[in-house]
């Protein structure tokens, strides 16, 4: 057993040394996650920088800039007037908001104030969106001033101080902002809110399977290098060697999945602590089954290229049948065909836990299938695994 674990440790060490393999198995899934995050996460897709020239430096200019800065997706860039004009001249910026001198003083005096947009051409698409947003903020501020001044006018001579009026009006305006009289509700159609839970389990299981079956290539490579044969002339038994490789495959797949799921936990808030642990357990058992399948590929393949091809075709076949990229309707032909893919069971089990609030008790059948596939896969791969042709 000790020697089997040493084989595992050595395998992990070699995996960590191979930067290309590391990049493939860890970075590629993260990139895929990032793409999905960008596409379906529900966060604003519009990100822009508002270039502002503040010639006023007054309290209301600061208030306007603060409100703009608080809008999701907008960052603020403060420019000096000359700098802004130079950037516009060179088309480095297409739109700049100018807050002219006297802006705050005019508002404070109850007069009218004006904001200026300096723009090149039509300001560009980003500039047009920005100007709409700025107009909205300015409009809100303008209405607040209007309301405040009208209230002050109506209460003139009643003994209510201006500061009391300001505080009261501000309180009502804040309440209005939180629960507006005229609200807008966003309703996402086409099941988009489920896209993350639809795709992420599939992507997790796909990459695990891909990494594990590609791990088969590493074993074939070791056979080619002669290190497998050399190991079998030491005190290490073939059983220990095989078990060590199996544990290494599980460790490798599980660590990769742990990273991906931790990312999903942190970024998508897909899990509660309990569902996170339950999902990890499902993935661990699934990884054990997938590792056994990877060992069958390692036992069958006679070259690294052969192992790569078998792994790729096998993984793609399992992934497609597993309903990774689209929902499969129960009872359909595709659903029935998908029953031969362990990915379909893994995806369903994960979705049950993540999206439907299920527990491990609800996924006993997939777990039993993984244990069965792992056991049968291990037996088959052990029976056909040979370090050298005609040897043990």
């Amino acid at each position: 057993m000790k020697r089997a674990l040493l084989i595992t440790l050595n395998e992990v060490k070699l995996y960590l040394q191979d930067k290309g393999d590391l990049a493939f198995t860890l970075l590629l899934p993260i990139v895929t996650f990032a793409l999905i995050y960008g596409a379906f996460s529900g966060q604003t897709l519009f990100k822009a920088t508002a270039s502002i020239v503040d010639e006023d430096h007054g309290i209301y200019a600061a208030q306007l800039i603060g409100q703009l800065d608080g809008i999701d997706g907008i960052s603020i860039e403060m420019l000096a007037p000359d700098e802004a004009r130079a950037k516009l001249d060179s088309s480095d910026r297409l739109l700049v908001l100018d807050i002219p001198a006297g802006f705050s003083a005019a508002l404070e005096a109850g007069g009218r104030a004006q904001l200026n947009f300096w723009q090149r051409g039509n300001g560009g698409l980003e500039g047009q969106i920005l100007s709409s947003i700025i107009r909205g903020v300015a409009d809100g501020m303008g209405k607040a001033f209007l309301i405040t001044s009208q209230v002050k006018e109506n209460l003139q001579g009643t003994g209510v101080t201006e500061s009391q009026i300001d505080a009261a009006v501000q309180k009502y305006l804040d309440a209005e902002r939180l629960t507006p009289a005229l609200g807008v509700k966003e309703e996402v159609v086409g099941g988009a809110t489920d896209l993350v839970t639809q795709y992420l389990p599939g992507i997790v299981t796909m990459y695990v399977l891909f990494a594990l079956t590609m791990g088969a290539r590493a074993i074939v490579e070791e056979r080619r290098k002669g290190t497998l044969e050399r190991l079998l002339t030491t005190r290490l038994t073939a059983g220990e060697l095989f078990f060590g490789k199996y544990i290494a495959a599980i460790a490798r797949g599980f660590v990769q999945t742990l990273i991906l799921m931790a990312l999903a936990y942190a970024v998508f808030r897909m899990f509660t602590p309990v569902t996170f642990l339950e999902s990890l357990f499902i993935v661990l058992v699934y990884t054990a089954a997938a590792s056994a399948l990877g060992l069958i590929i390692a036992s069958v393949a006679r070259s690294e290229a052969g192992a790569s091809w078998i792994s790729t075709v096998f993984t793609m076949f399992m992934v497609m049948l597993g309903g990774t990229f689209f929902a499969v309707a129960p009872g359909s032909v595709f659903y029935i065909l998908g029953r031969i893919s362990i990915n379909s069971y893994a995806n369903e089990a994960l979705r049950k836990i993540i999206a439907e609030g299920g527990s491990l008790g609800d996924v006993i059948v997939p777990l039993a299938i993984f244990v069965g596939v792992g056991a049968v896969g291990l037996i088959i791969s052990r029976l056909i695994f040979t370090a050298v042709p005609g040897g043990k």
Partner: protein
Amino acid sequence: MAEEFVVVKDLHKSFKDFKAVNGVSFSIYKGEIFGLLGPNGAGKTTTIRMLSTVLEPDSGDITIGGHSVRREPAAVRAIIGVCPQELALYEDLSAFENMVFFGRMAGLENRQAREQAMKNLELMGLEDRAKGKVAKFSGGMKRRINLAIALMGSPDLLFLDEPTVGIDPQSRNHIFENIQGLQKKGLTVLYTTHYMEEADRLCNRIAIMDGGQIIANDTSHNLKSQIGPPDRVSLEDVFLKLTGRSLRD
């Protein structure tokens, strides 16, 4: 009479219809360097694979240090070291990591493996490169590491399958001196090579294989005597006389 450390009796191994080893018998005395020569495809590597427990013979028996390879393979593996013909190293690991790993596989505890790794690296003149990745080593250095790994666990019997292929004369001489030094300490060696002068210089006795059979087995001097005055003929002359001049690949 010297003690027979390796006894091979009527060994047979076929791959489908091809008889790779066909009735091979020989013995190796303790502390002896025994040369196994033969053209490509003669059956040398298959014989070594059977002796080192990697391949199971179809029939025949092999005893090493009193242990039957068929019945007690674990006991046999505990007393042998194998330096394969192809470099069998983890190129992404350092020389030291390779040595320690194979030392652990040979049954050494971590501390013992580390100590022995340093000792064997010094023996091979590679102590300064212990932490270097094997991938960056020259061919000669890799060959020396390949041999040093075979010495991990202090085996009683060492299999050297063409250990000097593709290296410079300095590295080759270094390996020879090491092998001779180890022999003086009681190590038994089974040595295969295509370089006749190596076998002539190192081996106490030489067996020549061809077509899966041993066709000659004696000292270099006696083999040479079969075709002429030993001081006038070379081992290569004997080899070509016995195995013929036709190409085998």
